[in-house]
């Protein structure tokens, strides 16, 4: 009986999501299969010929295989900065949630401010130049970390409350130092949140557009979103190539999502405490 409702519900959900989510997606795919003339119409029609492979080849080869460089750069930036983000943000969120001091209000405000204020580009570039970090991947990574910390901190801060404090205490009694408690007990139990953070932040950073534009000049430093500029401008756009490009750069984050999505499982804290 339960089974049947879940199948019916699932079918309904699949139908609804198909309309709402998949149709726009199909549009993107169709665009990637068209030639330039047809794609300029930007309509919801079947491609007149199969141009997908040509499009892919052209997109990848454009501007001296810029796409490849971009993939490498974006991947490095994403992996390193997400790693740092997760660890540093979790540390802050953890202490912020667990320890009540009168500084908490201020700290939380500063964190929120990071979401509320757009970064000041020019002073930041001056600063990066002063630190010899301008135009380097290191600098870019640190920028991504700084700009995305607030989001991750807020996420962790809210979720630390779901880990029973008893577990911290048990670990402390077992002789754990703060780092042990954090890395061996709290962080593993926050895994679903970490997964969320990884997914969301890697998508955001991989797809970041404005920041690399300003902080990471130079062709050798291209990132994936910048490759879109090859096909889209104010005055003329090659929509077939643009959408092929969009499709191509969407695949890695999609794979990341599908991999990590499976890791979000229920019941991490089951059986921990009584009461």
């Amino acid at each position, binding site marked *: 009986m339960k089974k049947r409702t879940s199948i019916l519900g699932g079918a309904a959900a699949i139908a609804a999501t198909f309309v709402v989510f998949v149709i726009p997606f199909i549009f993107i795919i169709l665009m990637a299969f068209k030639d330039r003339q047809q794609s300029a119409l930007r309509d919801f029609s079947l491609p007149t010929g199969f141009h997908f492979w040509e499009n892919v080849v052209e997109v990848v080869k454009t501007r001296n295989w810029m796409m490849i460089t971009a993939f490498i750069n974006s991947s490095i930036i994403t992996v390193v900065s997400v790693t740092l983000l997760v660890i540093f943000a979790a540390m802050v969120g953890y202490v912020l949630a667990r320890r009540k001091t009168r500084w908490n209000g201020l700290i939380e405000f500063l964190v929120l401010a990071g979401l509320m204020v757009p970064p000041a580009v020019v002073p930041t570039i001056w600063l990066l130049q002063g630190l010899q970090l301008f135009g380097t991947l290191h600098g870019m990574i640190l920028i991504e970390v700084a700009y995305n910390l607030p989001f991750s901190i807020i996420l962790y801060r809210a979720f630390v409350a779901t880990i*029973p404090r*008893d*577990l911290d*205490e*048990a*670990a*402390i*009694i*077992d*002789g*754990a*130092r703060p780092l*042990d408690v954090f890395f*061996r*007990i709290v962080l*593993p*139990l926050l895994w679903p949140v970490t997964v969320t953070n990884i997914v969301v932040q890697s998508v955001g950073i991989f797809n970041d557009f404005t920041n690399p534009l300003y902080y990471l000049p130079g062709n050798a430093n291209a990132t994936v979103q910048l490759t879109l500029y090859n096909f889209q401008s104010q005055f003329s756009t090659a929509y077939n190539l643009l959408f092929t490009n969009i499709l191509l750069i969407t695949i890695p984050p999609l794979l990341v999502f599908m991999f990590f999505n499976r890791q979000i499982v229920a*019941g*991490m*804290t*089951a*059986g*921990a*405490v*009584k*009461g």
Partner: protein
Amino acid sequence: MAGLELRQLRKSYGKVEVIKGVDLTIEHGEFVVFVGPSGCGKSTLLRMIAGLEDITGGELVIGDKVVNAVEPRDRGIAMVFQSYALYPHMTVYDNVGFGLKLARTPKEVRDQKIREAARILQMEHLLDRKPSQLSGGQRQRVAIGRAIVRQPEVFLFDEPLSNLDAALRVDMRMEISKLHSELDATMIYVTHDQVEAMTLADKIVVLDGGVVQQVGSPIELYKHPANLFVAGFIGSPKMNFVEVNADKIVGETVHVSGPDVVGVPVALPAGKVHPGDKLTLGVRPHDLVVAPSGAIVGRVGLVERLGNETIVNLELPSGASWLAVLDGDQALKRGESLALDVDPAKALLFDANGLAVAAG
């Protein structure tokens, strides 16, 4: 050495004062049991000793250091939490071995200790499970295992056996007792089980409302409770009480009477009470014996036949009801009249403030 001293220890949660000035000395190697009604502050006291609760007032000394400001991991303690607090993402094996791992115990030693603990706790077959796959009692045993592998100077046990079956509980009691004598460690133990308290304790601390009521050896508390609270609390079933007046004093025996009893003799040194004093008479259910000429007469109420003994609920004339535990299996009929007697040496008297009129 790990003796403990609690000096006027106090703890408040906001405005609620939970521990109201506790003074206590625990010698190194002693086995101390905390007992008291639910919510009286036992766990809180334990957690203060462990360093998990800030101390609102007073001083806590372990060894010869004031440790108010010392971190839990530097206090040399292990603790079994009332709520278990197992690490849900680790197997039983890792849960038990976590403390050893942190202490960088070599792998083989660790393995051997974990397996030894699992053997003691009869959970060798559970080592690969996660806590969520365990029954309540199994979880509790994991919690115990986690404490005992570490062999610290002070053990804190918060109702460690409450969810175990009787047989296992007896076994565990023995194991803890053995551990105590082997390790020469100080143990502080909270329990609601009178038998546990009586059998394990060198010293029992009776708490009520955040205040220590009496400290003493088990037999002392049983025989010479300091006040009505301790008298009522220690011993199961509960001691029977009745309000009486001192009738007359004959040598070292006082005769007391009240609405329900007439002329019950109580052994007492001379000079402690005077005729006419308002007192409370206390008699343990186990100390009542069937005696046709007994001073206490009532009607049989509920009867519980346990096999080796029979518990009788006796309705006294005033409507009060007493319990009597009679030897053997006795077939008593509800409603029939029953007369009971008590050994004068075993009856106790308490004054108007509830303090024992000391027999000593």
